């Protein structure tokens, strides 16, 4: 997977902003974006959540959900062994059913990237080709509280170890303090650090940590800021704060992505992460994507679920569809 070239991204940002991306210009631009109608947004999201998806559509949705999952383990207690078992599950989510699709990627901490690359072996590659990417969280995940040098070194090390995708966190403190130029520069610098020696680049997912941004207006501004600065994906959350991905927040981010696509023709990906545990919830997200940006976004390079326990629930639902009786947690792996 290749990211957009930095030069064109910067030129595009300058053209949209009409000036250098400093605090004042970004502030003028981001605060000029209309505010979010919070009640309307939540109502729209709730409405999208009421669609009834049954039988053949449900079977399609379940398989599509699996192929969009970033199977994630981000624990202090992670070991190479745990990453190997995660990779084994990514390759073959339901050993009893060979028709089960593979997930899009495994998502690990930077130091676990070599283990993940080893464990995936020949299956490591672009999810659009049916292979599995390795995504690494970087930039002092989850807090983002470190100097830029450390964040860049963190990123470069993960890319050098074979990560195809980098999940970076923005500096929420700086964002909330209105230092948009700093946030912009950091994203741009991390994007640069995603470059490989051969000139290709790892895909950059920018985590907004919407649970810490307080308002929908801030989420909308942070989404624009991240896209302007060169992010290939915008991602809701780290999963480490209580309020993670919600349907309204994801809908809002999808609307930004839609507006950006209308304005520039460039397609940005969205990744809700954290708190999506059931197939039922995940299907609501599929509906929201299809209704907001279109079904063409339901591909691994434009939409992902950051999840760990979601996969088991989807597998249980698949088993239910296959056998016509309810399955149980004894029939899927313990994560």
């Amino acid at each position, binding site marked *: 997977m290749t990211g957009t070239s930095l030069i064109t991204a910067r030129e595009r940002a300058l053209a949209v902003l009409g000036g250098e991306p400093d605090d004042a210009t970004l502030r003028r631009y981001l605060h000029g974006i209309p505010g979010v109608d919070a009640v309307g947004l939540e109502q729209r999201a709730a409405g999208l959540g009421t669609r009834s998806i049954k039988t053949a559509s449900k079977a399609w949705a379940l398989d599509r959900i699996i192929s969009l999952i970033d199977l994630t383990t981000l624990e202090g207690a992670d070991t190479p062994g745990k990453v190997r078992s995660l990779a084994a599950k990514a390759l073959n989510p339901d050993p009893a059913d060979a028709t089960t699709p593979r997930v899009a990627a495994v998502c690990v901490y930077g130091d676990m990237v070599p283990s993940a690359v080893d464990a995936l072996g020949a299956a490591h590659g672009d999810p659009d080709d049916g292979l599995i990417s390795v995504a690494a969280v970087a930039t002092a995940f989850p807090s983002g509280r470190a100097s830029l040098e450390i964040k860049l070194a963190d990123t470069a090390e993960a890319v050098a170890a074979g990560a195809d995708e980098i999940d970076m966190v923005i500096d929420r403190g700086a964002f909330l303090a209105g230092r948009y130029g700093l946030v912009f520069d950091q994203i741009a610098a991390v994007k640069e650090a995603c470059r490989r020696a051969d000139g290709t680049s790892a895909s950059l997912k920018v985590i907004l940590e919407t649970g810490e941004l307080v308002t929908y207006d801030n989420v909308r501004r942070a989404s624009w800021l991240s896209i302007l600065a060169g992010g290939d994906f915008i991602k809701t959350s780290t999963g480490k704060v209580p309020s993670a991905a919600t349907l309204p927040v994801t809908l809002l981010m999808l609307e930004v992505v839609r507006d950006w696509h209308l304005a520039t023709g460039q397609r940005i990906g969205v990744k809700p992460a954290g708190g999506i545990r059931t197939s039922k919830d995940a299907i609501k997200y599929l509906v929201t994507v299809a209704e907001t940006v279109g079904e063409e976004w339901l591909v691994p390079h434009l939409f992902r679920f950051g999840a760990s326990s979601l996969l088991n629930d989807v597998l249980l639902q698949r088993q239910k569809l296959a056998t*016509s*009786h*309810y*399955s*149980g*947690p*004894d*029939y899927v792996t313990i994560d």
Partner: protein
Amino acid sequence: MSRLAVPKTYKLYIGGAFPRSESGRTYEVLSADGAFLANAAKASRKDARDAVVAARAAVGGWAGATAYNRGQVLYRIAELLEGRRAQFVAEIEEAEGATRAAASAQVDEAIDRWVWYAGWADKFAQVAGNANPVAGPYFNISVPEPTGVVAIVAPQQSSLLGFVSVVAPALVAGNAVVVVASERFPLSAISLSEVLATSDVPKGVVNVLTGSPAEIAPWLASHADVNALDLVGAGDLDWIDLEIAAADTLKRVLRPEQGPDAAAPALGRISAFTETKTVWHTKSMK
């Protein structure tokens, strides 16, 4: 001026809450002479699925409580039943068309059975377990452990007594239960759920579904996360098919019982839903 009575809508009891059926369905519960008594929720297979999830989540805590504590919690339910006996007597009179004396006798018997089973909580392991003699310097001890999630089709001809007679013994060993109440007499079961909800029984340990056992029981019998199936009240259903479905996932099954002695108090009803664990331990390290 006469007052317009407010009929109660009886809901399901799942995971410590009282939801309506996800299907939105209800059915009318009639008295013995055909008068309208109340609307009860008509549970769907998805309600059964939700109940199993709630029960599974509750097994660990309930099974992990000490036997003494379980006994105390169960005994407390009997105390609460005693306090609400007038309500249960009135419900049974209306629903079954029983005399006040017969209804009172049924409530008395239900409370007594509950106390009887509560007493077994910290005693049945001494009877059902064993210290086995082995040819070596080892203690070899067999202890009964709870089977897990038990799905029960409650006796259909009784409102309170039948329900108590099947739920209490399954709880004694530390199982969590999903009970399909009597289709015709569901009200006492939901009233008992209100007692359970305000007692010390952790949420999810008892889950009560009302509606059609013929519709719900097959989903519970085939559910891979149900460990045992008590078909005591399934005599009028196609229970052999239920037993076959249960065999697919190796469930323990109790077969239907008919008549007034159905589900009579017995240690066997407790030990039916236990698994024997045998452990070895060295006798001495001289």
